[in-house]
C-alpha cells in the first residue's frame, strides 16, 4: 500500500475516533452543571480561534499577513450591515481576490 492510501486510512480512522469519543464517553451521563456551562461556552472560544488561525495562519505555522485580512474586513463590514451569510462570505472572497489582482 502506498503513502497516499495509508494516510487516507490512518487520518480517516483517527478522525472518526476523535469525533465519536465525546458522544460515546458521555453516553448516559449528563455533565455536572458547571461542566455543562463550560461546554456551552466552547462554540465562541473555538470559533474565535478559527477566525484568527484561518485569517493569519501561515503554511508552516506562524503568521502570514496577506489579502485574507482585507477579505475578513469586508466580511465584517457586511456583517455590521446585517447582510445574509452568503453575502458575507462572497464579500470576503471577492475582496481578497481583487486585492490579489491589484497588488
Amino acid at each position, binding site marked *: 500500500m502506498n*503513502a*497516499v492510501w495509508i*494516510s*487516507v486510512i*490512518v*487520518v*480517516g480512522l483517527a*478522525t*472518526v475516533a*476523535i*469525533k*465519536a469519543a*465525546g*458522544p*460515546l*464517553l*458521555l*453516553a448516559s451521563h449528563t*455533565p455536572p*452543571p458547571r461542566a*455543562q456551562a*463550560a*461546554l*456551552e*461556552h*466552547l*462554540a*465562541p*472560544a*473555538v*470559533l*474565535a*480561534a*478559527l*477566525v*484568527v*488561525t*484561518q485569517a*493569519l*495562519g501561515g503554511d508552516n*505555522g*506562524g503568521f502570514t499577513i496577506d489579502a*485574507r485580512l482585507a*477579505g*475578513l474586513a*469586508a*466580511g465584517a463590514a457586511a*456583517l455590521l450591515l446585517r447582510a*445574509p*451569510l*452568503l453575502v*458575507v*462570505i462572497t*464579500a*470576503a*472572497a471577492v475582496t*481578497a*481576490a*481583487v486585492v*490579489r489582482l491589484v497588488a
Partner: protein
Amino acid sequence: MHPTSQRTYLDGVRAAAPIGVAAFAFGLSFGVLARSADMGRVAPVVMSATTFAGSAQFATASILGAGGGLVTAIVAAVLLNLRYGPIGLSAASAFEGPWWKRALTAQLVVDESWAIAQRDDGRIDRHLLVGAGLLLLVCWTTATAIGAFAGDLVADPESLGLDAAFPALFLALLWSQVRDRSRLLAAIGGAAIALVLMPFTGPGVPIVAASLACLIGARRPS
C-alpha cells in the same frame, strides 16, 4: 435559533445552504490540489467522505505533495482534528440511541454544522446538526470528486479569494454566538490563546488550546 419551536432536518439543510456553496467551492479546490499532489482520483474522494474535515485534508495533501513525509502528514492532520474532541463533548447530549448510532451521527459534526446547531439555551439541536452536516458532506464529497476527475476546469482557489471566505464564515458564525458578556469573554479568550500559541506550535494546537477559554463559562453554575 429558537429552542422552544421544534426544528427539522430541513431547517438544518436550509441554514447550511450558504455554507454549502462555500464548501462546494473548497471541495473542488481540494480535489484539484489532491490530484496535483499525486493522491490520484479515488483516494481524495474517499478521504472527503470519511475524514470530512477540510483543513486536515488540505494539510495531508499539501504535505504529501511537497514530499513532507507520511508521518508528518498524518501528525499534522490529526492535530488539526483534535478540536473535535472537546467539540464532541459539547455535542454529546444531542445524540440518542445505541452506541453505534451515536458514533455514526457524530461523524456529521464539523465546525460549521456544530455552530449552526447551537441553540439559545446552549445545547445542540440534533435535527439542525444532522441536516446541516449531511448537506455539507454531500457538497464536500461531490465537489471533491468533480475537482479530482475534472480539475483542469477549476481555477486556483487563492485567485478566487476562497481562503478569505472561511475566516469570514467563522466570524459570521461567531457573531451569532456572542449573545452575552461571558460568551464574549470566551471568544476573546479563545482568540488570545490562539494568537499567543500560533508562532510556537504547529497548526491545530492553538485551536485545541483555545477551547480551554470555555472554562470562563464555569465560573458560576447556570
